[in-house]
C-alpha cells in the first residue's frame, strides 16, 4: 500500500498535491463566512451534474421540449428529483452568491490588493441570473413561456438597442423553437463556459491576493481541518434544504406553452424583486438604470471606500442596501400576489390546465406535441367554439351578447328551475321574442324539484343517480300542468313545433338532443317557424359539434362527471 502510494506520488504528484491543498493557508484562519464560496462551488457542481443528467433526456423544440421534460419527470427513475435539485439548486446558488457577496463586501474584501478579485466576483452575478433566465424557458411550459415573453418585452423597451436585443433573444420576431434552441445553447454551452472562465479567473485572483496578504504577514491557518468541516457543514445545510424542497415540491411543470391564453406570469422567485421594482419604477429606469447603477456602485466600491479615503458608512450602505431592498421588494411582491384575486384565480386555472395536460399526455403525444392534445380536447375546443359562434348572442355568466339565454349554468338544477318558474326572466328568454310560455304559478313552485328531476331523467347518463319517486312525481306534474301539449315528451305527444310550437323535450340535454338542436334549431322537432337561432349543421363538422356539445353539457357538473370527455 505504502509502496503503491509512493509510486503514484512519484508518477503524478497526487499525494503531495492533496497535501498541499489540505494545508492550503486560509488567511485570517477558519471562518464561517469563508465557507460560503466553498458551498457555492459545491452548489454549482450540483447544478452541473444534474444539468448534464437532464441533457440525456431534454429535447429543445416547441413540440418536444415540454413533452421531454414530462417524460423525464414521469418515466425516468429519479427524473423528478434531478429536475427538482436543479431548480431549487439554482435558488441556492443565487442565495449563496448573494451571501458571499455581502460577506465579502462587509469584510472589505474589495480593498487593495483585492480589487480585481472583487470585480471578477461581481461579474458572476449577472452570469448566474443569465443561467436562471435561460433555464426558466427550457421546459416550454406556461410559466417559462410567459416569463420569457415578459423578459423579452422588457429587453425590447431598452432605448436604441431594444429591438435588436429582443430579436436576438427570440431568434426572430416571435417566441418559438428558435428561441428555445438558442436559450438551450446559451444555458448549456455559452454560460457554463463563461462561468468556467470567469470562475477560474476569480479563484486565481482571490488566491493571488491571498498570497500577497500572506507575504505581508497576515495570519493564516491551514484549510484542513478547521475550515474544511465548516465548508462541509455549510454545504450540507444548504444541500439538505435543497433536497427536501426538491423531493417535497419538485420543480413543477405547468401546461405546455400556449401563446393564446390569459396566463398570469411570474418569474422565478429570485427575479421577483426585479419584477416588483418595475412596478414601482416602470420603464428602462427600473429595468436597466437602477439595477445597472447598483452594479456600477458595487464595481466602484474599491475606489469609493479607498484605504486613503475610507468611507465605511457609504460602503456598508452600498453592500447592504441592494440585498435589503431586494428582500423588501420580494416580500412586497409576495404580499401583492397573495391579495390579488385575479392572479390567484389564474393560478388555479393554470394548475387545473397543467393537471389536464399531464393526464392527456400520459398515453403518448402526437407529432404536433401535447399542445395538439389540448387543442383537440373537447371541453376546451367547445369553449373556443362557443366564444366565436355562440357568445355573441348567448352570454356566459353575464359575459357576452344579450340577445339570448345565458348559458353559463345551462342544464344545472338552478337553471332548469329558473326557466320553468319564469321563462321571461332576462337570464332566459326575456330578451328574445319567444313569449308564449307562461310563468309557473306560485302555488305550483313546490313541484319544481320534481319537474327538474323529470327533465334530468331524460338524459340516461343521469338517470341512475336520480330518485325514482321524485322523477315519477315530476312526470305526473309535467302532464298535470300540460307541459306536454307544447313540449312533447313521449312519442304519443303532439308537442314539438308540429303540435305546440315549442321544442320537444324527449331526450332533453342528451348529446343526441343537443347535436340535433345545434344542427337545425328550426327543425319541426324544435322551434320550427318560431326559431330565431342560426343553424350550425353546415358550419360545424361532426367533431366540432361534438366538442360544443361536451362544452354545453359541461356547464352542469353532474353531466360533465357522468360522461368521460374522451
Amino acid at each position, binding site marked *: 500500500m*505504502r509502496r503503491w502510494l509512493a509510486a503514484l506520488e512519484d508518477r503524478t504528484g497526487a499525494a503531495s498535491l492533496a*497535501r*498541499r491543498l489540505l494545508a492550503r493557508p486560509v488567511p485570517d484562519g*477558519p471562518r464561517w463566512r469563508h465557507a460560503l464560496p466553498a458551498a457555492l462551488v459545491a452548489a454549482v457542481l450540483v447544478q452541473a451534474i444534474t444539468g448534464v443528467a437532464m441533457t440525456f433526456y431534454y429535447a429543445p423544440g416547441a413540440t418536444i421540449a415540454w413533452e*421531454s421534460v414530462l417524460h423525464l419527470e414521469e418515466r425516468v427513475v429519479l*427524473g423528478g428529483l434531478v429536475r427538482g435539485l436543479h431548480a431549487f439548486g439554482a435558488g441556492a446558488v443565487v442565495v449563496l452568491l448573494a451571501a458571499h457577496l455581502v460577506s465579502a463586501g462587509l469584510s472589505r474584501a474589495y480593498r487593495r490588493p483585492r480589487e480585481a478579485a472583487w470585480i471578477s466576483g461581481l461579474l458572476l452575478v449577472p452570469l448566474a441570473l443569465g443561467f436562471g433566465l435561460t433555464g426558466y424557458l427550457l421546459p416550454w411550459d406556461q410559466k417559462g413561456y410567459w416569463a420569457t415573453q415578459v423578459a423579452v418585452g422588457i429587453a425590447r423597451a431598452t432605448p436604441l438597442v431594444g429591438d435588436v436585443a429582443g430579436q436576438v433573444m427570440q431568434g426572430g420576431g416571435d417566441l418559438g423553437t428558435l428561441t428555445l434552441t438558442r436559450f438551450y445553447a446559451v444555458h448549456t454551452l455559452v454560460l457554463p463556459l463563461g462561468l468556467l472562465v470567469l470562475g477560474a479567473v476569480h479563484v486565481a485572483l482571490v488566491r493571488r491576493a491571498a498570497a500577497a496578504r500572506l507575504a505581508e504577514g497576515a495570519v493564516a*491557518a491551514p484549510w484542513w481541518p478547521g475550515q474544511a468541516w465548516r465548508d462541509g457543514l455549510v454545504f450540507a445545510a444548504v444541500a439538505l434544504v435543497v433536497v427536501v424542497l426538491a423531493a417535497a415540491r419538485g420543480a413543477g411543470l405547468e401546461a405546455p406553452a400556449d401563446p393564446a391564453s390569459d396566463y398570469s406570469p411570474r418569474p422565478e422567485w429570485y427575479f421577483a424583486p426585479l419584477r416588483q421594482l418595475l412596478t414601482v419604477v416602470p420603464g428602462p429606469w427600473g429595468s436597466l438604470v437602477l439595477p445597472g447603477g447598483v452594479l456600477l456602485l458595487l464595481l466602484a466600491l474599491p475606489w469609493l471606500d479607498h484605504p486613503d479615503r475610507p468611507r465605511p458608512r457609504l460602503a456598508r450602505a452600498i453592500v447592504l442596501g441592494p440585498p435589503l431592498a431586494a428582500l423588501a421588494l420580494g416580500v412586497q411582491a409576495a404580499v401583492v400576489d397573495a391579495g390579488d384575486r385575479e392572479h390567484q384565480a389564474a393560478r388555479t386555472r393554470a394548475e387545473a390546465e397543467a393537471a389536464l395536460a399531464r393526464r392527456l399526455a400520459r398515453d*403518448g403525444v402526437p*407529432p404536433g406535441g401535447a399542445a395538439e392534445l389540448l387543442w383537440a380536447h373537447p371541453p376546451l375546443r367547445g369553449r373556443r367554439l362557443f366564444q366565436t359562434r355562440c357568445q355573441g348572442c348567448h352570454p356566459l355568466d353575464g359575459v357576452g351578447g344579450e340577445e339570448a339565454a345565458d348559458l353559463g349554468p345551462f342544464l344545472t338544477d338552478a337553471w332548469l328551475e329558473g326557466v320553468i318558474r319564469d321563462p321571461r326572466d332576462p337570464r332566459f328568454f326575456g330578451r328574445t321574442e319567444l313569449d308564449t310560455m307562461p310563468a309557473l304559478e306560485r302555488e305550483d313552485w313546490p313541484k319544481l324539484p320534481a319537474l327538474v328531476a323529470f327533465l334530468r331523467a331524460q338524459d340516461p347518463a343521469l338517470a341512475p343517480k336520480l330518485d325514482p319517486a321524485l322523477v315519477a312525481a315530476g312526470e305526473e306534474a309535467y302532464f298535470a300542468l300540460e307541459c306536454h301539449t307544447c313540449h312533447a315528451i313521449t312519442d304519443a305527444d303532439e308537442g314539438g313545433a308540429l303540435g305546440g310550437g315549442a321544442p320537444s323535450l324527449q331526450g332533453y340535454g342528451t348529446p343526441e338532443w343537443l347535436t340535433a338542436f345545434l344542427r337545425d334549431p328550426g327543425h319541426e322537432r324544435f322551434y320550427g317557424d318560431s326559431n330565431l337561432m342560426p343553424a350550425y349543421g353546415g358550419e360545424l363538422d361532426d367533431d366540432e359539434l361534438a366538442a360544443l356539445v361536451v362544452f354545453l353539457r359541461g356547464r352542469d357538473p353532474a353531466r360533465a362527471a357522468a360522461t368521460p370527455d374522451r
Partner: protein
Amino acid sequence: MTAEDTPEPAPEQAPDAPTTGPTTGPTTGPTTEPTTGPTTGPTTEQTTGPAAPDPEQPDPEQPVPRRRFLEMAAVCAGACAGVGALGAAAAAVIGTPLRAGPAGDLWVDVGPLARLPEGQPLKVALEGERRDAWQRLPRRTLGNAVAIRRGGEVLAWSATCPHNGCDVVVGERDLLCPCHVSRFAAADGAVLLGPSPRGLDRLDTRVEDGRVLVRFQRFALGTAERRTL
C-alpha cells in the same frame, strides 16, 4: 485572532477553536518531503490521544499516527460512498430507457392478396403506430417485409438483414443486402453468400377476406440462432 498560542484541542470537543498549531508555519512542511508517505503529518495535526496530549512533533517511530490514519480513512470512506451513491444515481437516471424493449409484434394489413404477383418477391411496407419515447406516431413505416404469393398463400420475410440490420433489396435473381453484400435466396430466404449469420427471418402471415396480414416482429441481429425481440 488566530495567533492564540493555545495547543489545538481535539476537534470533537471544541471544533470552534482555531486550528493553527503554534510550531508549524502553514506553508512549510508538506511539499518539502516528496519521499515520505502521503499520510504523514503534512499539517499541524497532532497525535493527541487522550492519554498523551503533549507531544508537539509526530513520533518518528510511528510514521502514520493512528488518529490521523482514522481521519483519512473516514474521509476516504466518505468520499467513496459519495462517489458510489452518485454513480448509482447516475446509472439509474441514465439507464432508465434500457428497461424498455424495442417496440414490435403486431399484425399489419399490407393490402389485397390479388395485388401480390404470383411467385415474384415484392417488398411491402409494414405500417402502424410507432412509439418513440414520449411520442405516439400514427401510421409510420415500422419496417419492410419481402412477400411472395404462392397461390392463395403468402410467404413473408423480414427485409431486415440479420447481419447488421440493413434493408435488403429485391434483385432480379435473389435478395441482396447493400451493406455487406449478403445474398439470400428469393425462394426461402436462405443465405447464398456473404457475412449474414443466418437466412432472412420468416414472418407469420395469414389471409383474411382476401387481404394479406403480416405479423411485424423484430429479431436479434448478428446471431446464428433466431431470437425475437
